[in-house]
């Protein structure tokens, strides 16, 4: 029997992996990918809750999250491109010196 708890566990697993990657990795692109994972976990949670309550509101917010993730990827990758062009470095450890 599948229950909303299954989806919540999946969401928490993806969220924890994303948190670990966003904080532990220093490659800026990997950090962005980890943030995408976190947002993905949040949309799974919202979609499962939406199904659980029988309402479309959760799915609506999950759609907003997908749009926000796209905007975040565009802006973040723009920053990375500028950073790489400037001094050939794409690590978050170099950000404090370059800005």
């Amino acid at each position: 029997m599948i229950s909303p708890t299954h989806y919540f566990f999946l969401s928490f697993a993806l969220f924890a992996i994303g948190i670990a990657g966003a904080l532990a990795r220093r490659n800026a692109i990997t950090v962005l990918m980890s943030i995408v994972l976190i947002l993905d976990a949040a949309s799974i949670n919202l979609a499962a809750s939406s199904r659980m309550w029988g309402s479309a509101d959760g799915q609506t917010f999950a759609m907003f999250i997908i749009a926000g993730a796209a905007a975040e990827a565009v802006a973040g990758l723009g920053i990375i491109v500028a950073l790489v062009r400037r001094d050939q470095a794409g690590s978050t450890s170099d950000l404090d010196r370059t800005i």
Partner: protein
Amino acid sequence: MLLRTIAFYIFAVPAVVCAALAVTRRNIVHSAAYLTATLVLTAGIFLQLAASFLFAAQILLSASATMALFFFVILPSRGGLRSRAMPSKWRTFLPLTLALFFAVLGFFAAWAGRGTLPMPAADGPSQGNTEAIGGAIFEHYLLPFEMTAVLLLVAIVAAVIMAKRRVE
């Protein structure tokens, strides 16, 4: 019912494995490929949750558009993405502790709330899903929707400016 459980694990287990691989791989191209796999598998999860519109949006936006973007950044800047700072020990220890804390916290939260609200057993074709979302957007969440449009425009302009500007 058993079929649905099997279908859930077919999508969920590879999604978690691919997410872990995406975060841990050193090769950034492999990492992006694994992340794409995770996003596509998540789309499968959405389909099981009868969220057909989210399924389409996830495939179109996350899995194809975002990943194309990642590859367009990764491929021209290969070799430039190298850290010059020395790694420190707490830099890896602290995030893993934090992630474990969140995982345990979420586990207990979900465990405490298990069985309170069962998943509806309605299995029919989820017609009207897009219609319901459209109604929710244009009746209740019109302002967030318009703000999302402005946010995307700002992101596009910011990306163009940062990619084109010459820094002397």
